[in-house]
């Protein structure tokens, strides 16, 4: 019988992985107002690159992680310039369709290049096995995932609230034409933010590979989950995304353990309830 | 002299900012009133409040004696309170003919019918083209609105308002964005409005105002500072101060 603390540990790890991946989507949606359904696909790409680097090329985990993040960003940059830039400000339906199209294409290519099987990312010895916390033992990679989440949250907060870039970012979110009139290069802010968002997705894809296994349909399978986290938390809100990710991680994990028959049902019922009462998300800003 | 529209002590604030400050006014049947004021005075906010698009903090709105303060915008339209928009709001892919027909169908309570077609309703078709004719839109009646001139779009807004047979009409800058040469057509259209209709027009074009209005109300910083004849408005000290600030009396110093 699994105890509350191990379920809590699972929920925390899962929630943190969701957060790290979804926060990028929250930024994209809050800033560029783009419903990017392909966001999960970039997390998947990160996972694939890391898996290839560590398994096929024999690189250490840390290096593989860095290459995965950098590689995914490199792939995303031309996509932003050629495709995403054309749909800023377009209707929701247009953005949904374009990004679904990108997702489909990425899934097809992933299968073409890597094949349909599941890919694992071998963890370094420090992250394998359980860690004895005194009262319980928890798998090291789960603690690692949680730690990464905390660091990301903190770093993002610092970036947005305390740096000049953050000021420009917030100005562009509030009123892009005005920010532009004041000399902020909004297209550059958008490009950098998009890169950061994608980089975070890739990071989450690698760190969460144990919980969200890497295979071609990953991009479609979790598309809805990331979207739900952002809309429940409120697009553009870091605390909102954190709250929503942890909440939904908890509901999902607890549901799976306690009421496995009805877990998904309650999950979606909860989503409907929350989004109906809080159409801008729990901590989102009213439009 | 029958009162058709009353606003009593209307107020609205956003946080610490008072945008509408205890505004009261009355319109009688057949009134031609202009609502003017410097930018940011709260004129469009006033229209949004009385039409129900914005909820007031306090105050009452009455249409023909009936309190409509709690009514939805749609209900107020059906009670006879119609507005036009400062920035044209039309259906860009539909034709003027369809716009006016739809307004007529709505007025007649037939807009929910699913199995009929307005082309087979001679009363609707003839009234549609009567209205379009009055506003000079017959020639463009079958073009998508996105393809007709902006001035004609403004006229279409007025056509829609007329089709709804309002008791009170609120015109939000009907000549805004229209080239000066074309404002004549809008004036002609306004001259054709039914004589017992009460009209309140927000405008900045003072020539237009003086040709149109028999009464002028001046709004500044959310409050009414003048309600009287067009002849008296230019010399009123409060009005001068609102528009010109402390320089209003500058001349007397020199």
């Amino acid at each position: 019988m699994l105890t509350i603390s191990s379920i809590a540990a699972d929920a925390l790890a899962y929630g943190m992985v969701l957060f790290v991946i979804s926060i990028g989507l929250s930024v994209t949606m809050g800033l560029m107002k783009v419903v990017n359904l392909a966001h999960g696909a970039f997390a998947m790409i990160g996972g694939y690159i890391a898996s290839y680097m560590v398994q096929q090329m024999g690189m250490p985990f840390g290096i593989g992680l860095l290459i995965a993040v950098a590689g995914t960003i490199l792939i995303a940059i031309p996509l932003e310039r050629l495709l995403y830039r054309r749909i800023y400000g377009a209707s929701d339906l247009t953005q949904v369709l374009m990004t679904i199209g990108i997702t489909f294409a990425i899934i097809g290519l992933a299968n073409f290049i890597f094949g349909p099987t599941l890919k694992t990312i071998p963890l370094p010895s420090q992250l394998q096995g359980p860690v004895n916390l005194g009262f319980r033992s928890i798998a090291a990679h789960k603690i690692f995932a949680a730690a990464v989440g905390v660091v990301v949250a903190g770093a993002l907060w610092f970036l947005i609230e305390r740096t000049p870039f953050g000021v420009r970012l917030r100005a562009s979110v509030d009123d892009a034409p005005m920010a532009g009139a004041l000399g902020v290069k909004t297209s550059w802010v958008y490009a950098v933010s998009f890169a950061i968002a994608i980089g975070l997705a890739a990071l989450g894809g690698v760190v969460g590979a144990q919980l969200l296994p890497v295979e071609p349909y990953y991009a479609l399978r979790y598309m809805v989950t990331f979207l739900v986290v952002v809309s429940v938390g409120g697009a553009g809100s870091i605390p909102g995304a954190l709250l929503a990710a942890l909440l939904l991680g908890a509901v999902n994990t607890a549901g799976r353990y306690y009421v496995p028959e009805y877990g998904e049902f309650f999950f979606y019922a909860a989503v409907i309830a929350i989004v109906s009462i809080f159409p801008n998300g729990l901590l989102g800003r009213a439009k | 002299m029958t009162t058709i529209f009353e606003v009593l002590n209307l107020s609205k604030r956003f946080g610490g900012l008072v945008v509408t400050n205890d505004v009261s006014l009355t319109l009688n049947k057949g009134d031609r009133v202009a609502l003017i004021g410097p930018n940011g005075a709260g004129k469009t906010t006033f229209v949004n409040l009385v039409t129900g698009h914005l909820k007031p903090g306090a105050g009452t709105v009455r249409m023909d004696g009936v309190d409509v303060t709690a009514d939805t915008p749609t209900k107020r339209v059906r009670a006879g309170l119609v507005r036009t928009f400062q920035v044209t709001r039309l259906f860009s892919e539909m034709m003027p003919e369809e716009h006016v027909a739809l307004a007529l169908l709505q007025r007649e309570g037939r807009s929910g019918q699913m199995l009929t077609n307005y082309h087979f309703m001679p009363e609707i078709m003839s009234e549609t083209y009567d209205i379009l004719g009055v506003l000079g839109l017959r020639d463009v009646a079958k073009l998508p609105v996105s393809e007709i001139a902006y001035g004609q779009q403004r006229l279409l807004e007025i056509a829609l308002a007329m089709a709804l047979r309002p008791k009170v009409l609120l015109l939000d800058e009907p000549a805004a964005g229209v080239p000066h040469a074309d404002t004549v057509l809008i004036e002609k259209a306004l001259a054709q409005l039914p004589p017992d209709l009460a009209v309140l027009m927000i405008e900045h074009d003072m020539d237009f105002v003086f040709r149109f209005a028999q009464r002028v109300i001046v709004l500044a910083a959310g409050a009414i500072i003048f309600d009287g004849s067009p002849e008296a408005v230019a010399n009123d000290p409060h009005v001068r101060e609102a528009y010109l600030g402390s320089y209003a009396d500058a001349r007397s110093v020199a």
Partner: protein
Amino acid sequence: MTDTALSTTPVQPVATPTQRPFMRDLFAVGVIVVIAVAGFFLLPTNLALLTHIVAVMLLVLSLDLVTGYAGVATLGHAALYGAGAYAAGIAATKFGIVDPIAMLGIGAVGGALVGLLSSAVILRGHGLSQLVLSIAVVQLVREAANKASGWTGGSDGLSGIAPTPLLGLFRFDLYGRTAFIMAVVLLILVFIALRIIVRSPFGMLCRGIKEDKVRVRAMGAPVYTTLVKLYVISGAVAGLGGALAAVTTKVVGLDSVSFEMSAEAMVMLVLGGTGQLFGAMLGTLVFIWFEDMVSTINPFHWLTIIGALLVIVVLFAPKGFMGAGNALIKALQRRSGGAK
């Protein structure tokens, strides 16, 4: 009294579809009949696929109503289709109602009911929240269908649906001839009904809602109740599609009420062209046809092609194949028409 000094717009309006409604309708029905007849005689062993295409066409038509005409973007419309399929299937297997037309009717009612309930949830949101609500609705319905296995057969689905001969005369034969003809007749009837509805005052109101809700309210017309009515009609059409699938394939599975099916329906609609009814049918035909051809080779290539096609359509042909076709026709007309 009229004054044309205002504009430089041409006085000669381009012929709009509303000017010759009947001819266009007749032509459209004629095209459907021709293609159906061609399919019947040229592909006698493939009628099951063609019937499946017609069932999905009904789903995509229903989606066109809410998305193409009224502007409600939803990724949960398969819930209405699946509701119709399960309603018909349950009626047959649990209540012994096996007359095919009765089953279709029950499917329509089931779809309309779920449409009504969906609209209560979906119409409360805008933009992203509306999309997420629509996804949540279809997933919820899917989970309900999965769990209520006493009624729905759970993940195994319903099978053994055995419809009695159509009108008491036409047996559902092994080649699927009766099924196909029934499907085509149903499609034509629905198509005609929808063409009428779309051109009615109600249809105009929906198109207005898509363009500018504020303007609709300023005309004194209701927005929310109109959309709910539309959802009920859309649900009936989708339900008919689901019931048709149940009657003709004799099985109902969970895939008929899935997010994937909703997304595919949206893709088909956009490829064909929104807001034109015919585009919905064209997109479905092309999509499923190609899918049948390509995915036997490699399902992933299919995904890549569709993905690329979507991106191209969004960027270069936002009105889909129909829009591109219309533009082509207009360009050819201008070329041969000569002077303006």
